[in-house]
């Protein structure tokens, strides 16, 4: 059976010559549909670079990246954007919300790039707001929310397009323990519903709760 994600000798170099940095030094692995994987490693080990490549925000310098059998490393920027739009949801440590947009508009942003009708956007966002238990914050702005509420908004935005993969980069890094647990419950719940989940984390408890752990060190899988 074909893997959902297949990385083959992926390399990523920043800069050229002696001042250049090798962020990923030829890593290979596969991920099956519905898996929940933790990517662990020290700061600078290449976790974020790996997630950026998996999410189509960055392209590898060398190697092959296939998603559902389709070569992603060869895609042009516009097609890469379409790939992100249809398949990937991002959650990051500091939420990446736009402060001068309401909670509703932040969540609706991916739908607007899909040119969805206003009525449908309204329905989908309302539904997710209810799921995340933040319906009352619909018209609030991110600075008015708690960290936990911000991360729920970020998760709602990440999954509103029903992506096949959720990439979470330190999703609980900016949260207290209790809120972090709650956010992880939401992510686990999404995974149980079939969403492939890849989490970059320093947290051993979160890593150990995943089905598989990929440990990175200096751009290589240990």
């Amino acid at each position: 059976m074909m893997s959902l994600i297949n990385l083959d000798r992926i390399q990523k170099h920043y800069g050229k010559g002696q001042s250049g940095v090798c962020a990923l030094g030829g890593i290979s692995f596969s991920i099956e549909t519905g898996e929940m994987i933790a990517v662990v490693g020290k700061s600078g080990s290449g976790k974020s670079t790996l997630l950026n490549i998996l999410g189509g925000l960055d392209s590898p310098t060398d190697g092959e990246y296939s998603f559902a059998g389709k070569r992603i490393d060869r895609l042009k920027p516009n097609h890469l954007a379409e790939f992100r739009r249809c398949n990937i949801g991002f959650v990051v440590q500091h939420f990446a919300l736009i402060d001068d947009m309401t909670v509703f508009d932040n969540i609706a942003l991916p739908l607007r790039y899909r040119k969805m009708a206003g009525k449908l956007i309204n329905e989908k966002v309302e539904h997710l707001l209810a799921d995340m238990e933040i319906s009352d914050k619909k018209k609030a702005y991110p600075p008015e929310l708690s960290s936990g509420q911000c991360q729920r908004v970020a998760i709602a935005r990440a999954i509103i397009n029903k992506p096949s993969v959720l990439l979470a980069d330190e999703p609980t890094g900016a949260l207290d323990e209790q809120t972090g647990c709650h956010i992880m419950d939401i992510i686990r719940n999404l995974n149980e519903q079939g969403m492939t989940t890849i989490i970059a984390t320093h947290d051993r408890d979160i890593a150990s709760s995943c089905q598989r752990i990929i440990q990175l060190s200096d751009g290589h899988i240990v």
Partner: protein
Amino acid sequence: MPEKFGFGYEEGACEPYNRDGEQFFPAKCIQVSGNVFTEFGISVEEGQAFSSEDFVLDNTDKLKAVLGNEYKEYFKIGDRLEAEYLFTRMKFEVSGFLPPNTYIPRNGVLVYMDRYILIPAFSRIDTQRYYDIASIALLQQANGQIVTADKSLDVPGLVKALSNKYNTLYFDVNKIGQKEIQRTIKLSDEIVKTLFLIFLTLVVFTVVGLTVNIQGRIRDNYYRYGVHLMSGAALANITCQIIGLIMYIIGCSLALSLVLAAIATGIGMQLIVVILVALAIFALSCIVPLITIKRLDISCLVRRKE
């Protein structure tokens, strides 16, 4: 014909003259263009003013004349006058009379028209048949300065030939030498160069100012662009946002410029120049921001704030 209609009668200098054995009486006469009636609010008391066909000279036997009010005692509508006009025998039909006490401003002075004959200032002349009349009409209309480096337009020669032929022609020709023409052209070139320099400086200041401003906005919005890209935007969407912003700034400035230009110089083709300059500034202002967007390192846009 009473003397009061004679040219120079009021100054006591109205003398008849002989030509080819015939005696002529110099009458007060004025050429008027088509718009003189509307421009100066003059109406015709009786009969008709000139129509557009009356300003075409193709037959000297069928011309129209409008007479001053004091002529009413001596002529009626449809009467014919025979006169030597522009050194040529012509026949005029009286088409109308001006109301009494009509004045027409000429060279800053109001001229009392009641004793005048109004003749159409011909705008089109059959030059094949009436070459001399056409030449004289041209010289009459060129009542300012003729500045030309083109030797083919020999104005003094033309005047001299006509003067010799008719033995009289009141037309002063001040010929400007080649040096003066060159100096005038050089001066014009200098003015054009200076204006171009000012124009270039303003355009450069505008483009650089706008570019720096937009670059600043791009830097300030790195994080926002990162969020948009994570949400499925393409770089083309970000580019559209930037171009939209530049268009908005240029559009506001252009609207204001057009209004000011229209107030200062009126609505006309010159406004197209304003639009073209705005388009050029828009195109130039887009270059650096577009390069910046193209070179954006997407992966660095949303950095973890550890």
